[in-house]
Structures are given as C-alpha cells and as structure tokens.
C-alpha cells in the first residue's frame, strides 16, 4: 500500500492492530509519518489534516489506515462526515472481521455465523455492507481488495490516489489467530473468500461498477461456500440454516452488482 502511495504520504491510524504493528516508542516500523489518533476520530482527523495540507498548497497523500471496528462501528460517523464534505483523502479499511487488537470481539464487520469472544455461539446479525453505505455518498472512487491479491491491491491504491476527493478501499485481511486457521493458509483463505463469493472484488468509479476478473469467475461458478467455512475455527459448528442464508446473500450480492455493472456500463 505504501509502495503504491510513495513517500509524500501521511498515515492516520486510529486504535487498531496497526497501532501495535508500528512498534513501541522510541521506534516506528514505518517510513512515512504516522499520526495515531483516537478510535472514532480517524476520518475527522484526516479531514482536518487534508484541508490543512491543501490550504498550504501541499499535495501530500493523507491515508487513513483503519480496522473494521474503527470504520464500520465507532468510526462511521466521522467517515460519513468526511465523505459527505468531499474531503481529499484515501480511507483504507483492512477488515479482519472483528476487533482484532483486543482479542477478536464481534464488530459490524463480523459475518453472520462467525464465532468471536462476544458471540461465542456465532454472530446472529449480518455483516454491515460498508461499501454500499460509502457508495451512497457518491465518492469518485471506491474499491474492494483482498490481501491475497497484492498486485490488484497495489493497482487500486495507486488509482485511488489519482482522484481528488474521498476514496475508499476495503481490504479483506484474513487473520490466522482470529479466524482460527494455520498461518501458512492465509493467502489460501483470502482466495477462497473471493472464489466462493463471500468477498467480491470490484471497483466503483464515479458510480460505474467494474467487477474484477477473479470475481467474474466466481460469479459464474462459485466454489462451494463450505470450502471457505470449514477450514476456519470461527465457523466451526455453524448452523446449516445460517450457511444457507450466507449462500443466498452471496447470490443476491452478485445479482445486484452484476445488474449495477450492466446499468452503469
């Protein structure tokens, strides 16, 4: 992500796993300035920072790098405001589908049926579709991505930064300890998410929807959802009725996106 952004970049990071990944004072693991901010305030902080830079004639990239909890839940108010005001910044949400930093509690991003420490028998509510919520703000560009497809992610970050205004990239970030699968299977998990349709790779540029090739394949012939669910401890013992609901949602989501792609062509 940073490779795509280049050195004239500032990251705004709310409380999330990345708060820890930076390392402990007096060291930092990042080669760009990282501004750490309170949990719900990232987009508002970025809004202020971006306005300040632009007022000073600076083109510095302002990139929020936040988890799903900090985006879909506590950060949604600030994010909506920043998008509604047309803030020139890139908001990246890396989604491991729970509050990872505090030990995997459920978030708005947790899929239905997933076990977390606050949903020990499986979450009963559906995953919040933040992409559609942000789309409703009519941003110039938004995209979904997946850590298992790094080149695709790289291209999307580069592209997002060419737009003036608010842009959004939503990355699926498989999490071995949180989803309970062996670390070496992370790339495989990410790919399975896409191949089963649980995660759809697409872009929305000025409202024009383009579904990515990997998801086009999945749309035609999705892998059985069970192949994605069964290797993950968080879905162990999931009710077959919930699996059905998830499959229906996948189908409906594909339908809707396909229709949007056609209509916006």
């Amino acid at each position, binding site marked *: 992500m940073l490779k795509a952004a280049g050195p004239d970049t500032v990251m705004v990071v709310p409380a999330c796993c990345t708060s*820890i990944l930076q*390392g402990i004072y007096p060291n930092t693991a990042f080669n760009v300035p990282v501004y750490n901010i309170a949990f719900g305030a990232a987009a508002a902080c970025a809004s202020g920072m971006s306005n300040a830079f632009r007022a000073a004639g600076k083109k510095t990239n302002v990139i929020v790098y936040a988890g799903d909890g900090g985006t879909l839940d506590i950060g949604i108010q600030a994010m909506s405001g920043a998008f509604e005001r047309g803030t020139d910044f890139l908001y990246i949400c890396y989604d491991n589908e729970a509050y990872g930093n505090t030990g995997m509690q459920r978030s708005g991003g947790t899929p239905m049926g997933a076990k977390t420490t606050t949903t020990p028998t499986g979450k009963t509510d559906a995953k919040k579709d933040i992409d559609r919520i942000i789309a409703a703000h009519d941003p110039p560009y938004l995209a979904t991505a997946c850590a298992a497809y790094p080149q695709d992610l790289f291209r999307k970050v580069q592209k997002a930064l060419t737009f003036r205004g608010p842009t959004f990239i939503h990355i699926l970030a498989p999490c071995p300890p949180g989803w309970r699968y*062996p670390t070496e299977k992370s790339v495989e998990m990410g790919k399975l998410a896409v191949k089963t349709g649980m995660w759809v790779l697409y872009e929305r540029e000025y409202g024009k929807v383009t579904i990515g090739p990997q998801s086009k394949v999945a749309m035609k012939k999705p892998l059985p959802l069970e192949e994605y669910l069964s290797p993950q401890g968080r879905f162990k013992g999931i009710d077959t009725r919930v699996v059905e609901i998830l499959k229906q949602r996948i189908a409906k989501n594909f339908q809707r996106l396909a229709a949007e792609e056609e209509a916006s062509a």
Partner: protein
Amino acid sequence: MFEIRIHSRGGQGGVTAARLLAMAALHDGKYATACPFYGAERRGAPIVSFVRIDDKPIKVYSQIRQPDMVVVLDESVMDVVDVLHGLKKGGRVFLNSANKKVFEGFECHNVDVTGIALRENLVVAGSPILNTPVLGALAKMGIITADSAKKAIREMFSDERNVKAAEAAYKEMNA
C-alpha cells in the same frame, strides 16, 4: 513469600501455567497470586508470568525482582532474555529440556516436558501443551503437592491426558 518467574513465548500457555500453579497452591491452603506481565503481546514473543505463594494474603503487585525460582518453558527464550536476572543465590531453575544444564550458583532441574506432551499426544493446533505437565515437575520439586496439582488440572481441563502428562513429568523429575 515464595516468588516464581515463568518464562515462555506467547501462545505456549505460560499464563495458564501461572494460573494452574496458583490454583494448586490454593488447594494446598496457601494464598497465591498469578500475573502475566503485559508488554506488546504477539504470538511467539517472549513473555513473563509471575506467581507468588504465601501463607498469608499477598499485598505486593509490583514485578518480582528477586525470584526464588525461575521456570523456563521454552529454552529458546534464553537467547534473548536473561532468565536468571535477579534470581536469589541458590535459587532454583526449572528448564523444559531433555538436556541437563548447569547454571553456576543455582539449583538446576530439567525435564523434557515437550517430549512428554508429544508422547502423551497432548497437542493442540500443532503445539504441545506444556503447562499441565510442568505442574507435575513443580510438584516433585515441592512447590505444590501432587494432589493439588491434579486437582487444579482437573478443574481446568476435562482431558485426562493432562493429568497423565503431569504424572509422567513428576516421575521423570529427579528432585
């Protein structure tokens, strides 16, 4: 007051080992506290847990600076951490190892706890369970009684292999 410092790596069950030890001491009629020291946690990073055992309530919360005993669940931690730091003169060291190591000035013991865990098939998600068998070794060293060790293990785990591993460690331990 008897103070024990337990060295391990994140994810190996060092914190649970401390808890089991405290539970067993409680069954022995003692007062015990167990506390992990929290730094920036991540899997595989060296961590420390503290256990204090006394006949009366313990009012100390600060870190153990001069332990009476050090338990090392993962030898590799010794490459990055000075596990003997502050250990009282003549203090005891327990090492999870198949090889006997000598530390000048301290009483050293070792049992291949990992080996025992593997033999008893006490493995979860690919990792051997170290905290229950090590309790057996500590019982042989007289820190807690064998009965209380078994009681504590059974309170926490339903799988009887944990007790078997603890008993094996107890036997293999030559105190």
